[in-house]
């Protein structure tokens, strides 16, 4: 696999991780204030 391809895959993984962590951060903050579980229920 070329270096460019590897870098693109890494970029996609980082974007996906950022998206998941972003929503989890908001959910965690809301849960802290209001109560709730970090996982389960709606993903969005």
């Amino acid at each position, binding site marked *: 696999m070329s270096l460019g391809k590897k870098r693109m895959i890494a970029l996609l993984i980082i974007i996906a991780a950022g998206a998941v962590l972003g929503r989890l951060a908001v959910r965690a903050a809301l849960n802290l204030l209001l109560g709730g579980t970090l996982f389960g229920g709606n993903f*969005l």
Partner: protein
Amino acid sequence: MKAKERRKSSWLWGLAYAGAFIASFAASAAFKMCYDPLAAETAADWNDAVGKVYTDIPYGNGPANMFDLYVPADGSKDAYGLVVYLHPGGFTAGDKAGDEKILKWLCAKGYVAAGVNYTLFSEENPDANVYTQSMEIKESIPFIQAEAGRLGYKLDRMAMAGGSAGHTLAMLYAYRDAASSPLPVKMVFGAVGPSCFYPEDWRVFGFDKNYGAAAGMFSVMSGEDITADMFGSEAYENAIKKISAVSWIDENSVPTVCAYGAHDKVQAFEASKRLDEALTRHGVPHAYIVFPHSGHGLQNDAKQARLYQDKIHEYLDAYMG
């Protein structure tokens, strides 16, 4: 030379990775904060052809004693159903203006809708409590009926509704005051409103281990002088009954739709089980919807939120016409 270029390229890719992470993190967080899967369900395409709003109509002597009235543009019916929606805010904050969206939605469905303000507990109003607030709501209903009549909308039935503190006040009117209401109360719906006050239920505040703290808070909420040794006695039941919606439920109570978060940190989820149990025991038609992953904001269970919406629709159609 080649090594220098490779270092520069690596450095640029590092920047790209960091930028991509920050951008996707921020976009995802912003989307999570703004996304409401049911927004379209309760949004009315509001214009003069749908309805009209009359704001800040007084109903009592206090500066907070005002209501907003949303009337449908179609004034041709012989009679209308009234839906009163009471705002949240922990009995200490909030305003009817915050419920504009749901009030417009109710009005677009053909009901006369009213948002009512009540005197909030504060340093300026230390004597305000759940009971005085519930009595203000009771006081407002004849004024709402009269104002609607003056505008040409005869009311012949009503539903009570609200969120959190507003839900508590809505339940108190629906279960405690319905018999003396100038309009027949047909149903009540709402979410996350405290329905009764037993210290063992209020573990979220540690009241199950600290009866003194429970007595203090329940005294402020009820306006009664409640002491820790009263819990479990008839004297306590009598003192708290006036703000305990569950205590007023009997076989004549109105159909109910209610929603609660199983992980609520703001009020006692356990107390809502007593509400469900009382409604079941007395054979009152009701939908008790638990959001298993959510807290006070009912924020983590879209499926349950849809069910709650569907039940409100179903009950409004069945009992309010």
